[in-house]
């Protein structure tokens, strides 16, 4: 019994443990982050904006100034950059002159959406991200995340499962379950202690984490 508990505690610890090396991040800690619309490598056209619309909250709640994501997207489109791909090609010195963020977050959505099997469905959001210092071009942080949420709520019996699967499909196709999962994925990616970003200047714990 006690061993089981020790194991449970260890499992919890490992969720927060093995911190990454924050040397580069701490050398140039950003105050402000420009998030460009993510590249979409998935098959779902909703991926870019499903992810972009859920990235501000975790970043801002970590203590960073986050440029208004939709305004930036519109502003860039009005200035001859019609897609995320073109926006990702803009040189850092130009971004610095026009918008002046400390860092740019470049993201890519590798999977986004719900897969259906006969008895179950699973919603997947898989992301990669790189945070780059605008002045030096240095990589401050990078990360990736893969969140899978099963649509099966554990109802027993074959008929129950079939009905549930059918209902889930109807609900999922009319809502976009991946949007909710994208919010979870962004939070896991950016906030997880020891793996995500360090606290930014608007957070009361700024400067207390990532010490070596």
């Amino acid at each position: 019994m006690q061993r089981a508990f020790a194991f449970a505690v260890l499992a919890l610890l490992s969720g927060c443990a093995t911190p990454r090396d924050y040397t580069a991040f701490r050398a140039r800690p950003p105050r402000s982050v420009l998030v460009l619309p993510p590249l979409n490598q998935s098959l779902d056209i909703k991926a870019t904006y499903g992810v972009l619309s859920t990235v501000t909250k975790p970043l801002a709640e970590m203590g960073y100034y986050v440029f208004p994501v939709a305004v930036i997207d519109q502003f860039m489109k009005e200035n001859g950059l019609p897609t995320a791909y073109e926006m990702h090609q803009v040189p850092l010195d130009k971004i610095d002159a026009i918008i002046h963020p400390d860092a740019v977050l470049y993201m890519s959505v590798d999977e986004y959406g719900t897969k259906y099997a006969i008895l179950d469905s699973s919603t997947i959001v898989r992301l990669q991200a790189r945070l780059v210092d605008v002045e030096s071009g240095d990589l401050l942080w990078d990360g990736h995340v893969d969140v899978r949420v099963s649509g099966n709520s554990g109802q027993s019996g074959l008929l129950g499962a079939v009905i549930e699967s059918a209902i889930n499909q109807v609900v999922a196709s009319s809502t976009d379950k991946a949007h909710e999962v994208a919010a979870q994925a962004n939070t896991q990616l950016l906030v997880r202690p020891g793996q995500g970003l360090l606290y930014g200047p608007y957070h009361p714990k700024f400067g207390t984490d990532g010490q070596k």
Partner: protein
Amino acid sequence: MKPTWIVAGVGAAVLLGGCASSSNLYYWGHYEQDVYDMYIVPDKATAEKQVEDMEADFERARGAGKPVPPGFQAHLGYLYFQLGKFDLARRSFETEKANFPESAVLMDRFIQKLEG
């Protein structure tokens, strides 16, 4: 209950607490949902509808004693601009800049455009 269990339980709770997020810094309201709707279900997020949501959120944030998030006033200003309400747009851009000086270069650019 054996003491070791209590110790283990408290230990796990402390660890869990260490990983969990604390209460929010900002009042979020409709901001992120409106951004999503703008692109995915545009009928639900016309400029008028978003302005309505965000003006109400601003009041609720004041009631809750929390600031609105970074980008909120800039987004609202952009909506006012689209609706031709240039004085309100300018006021929002100036508020964003005052609340978050990190936005100054971009906000000045937008304000300049208003004076165009």
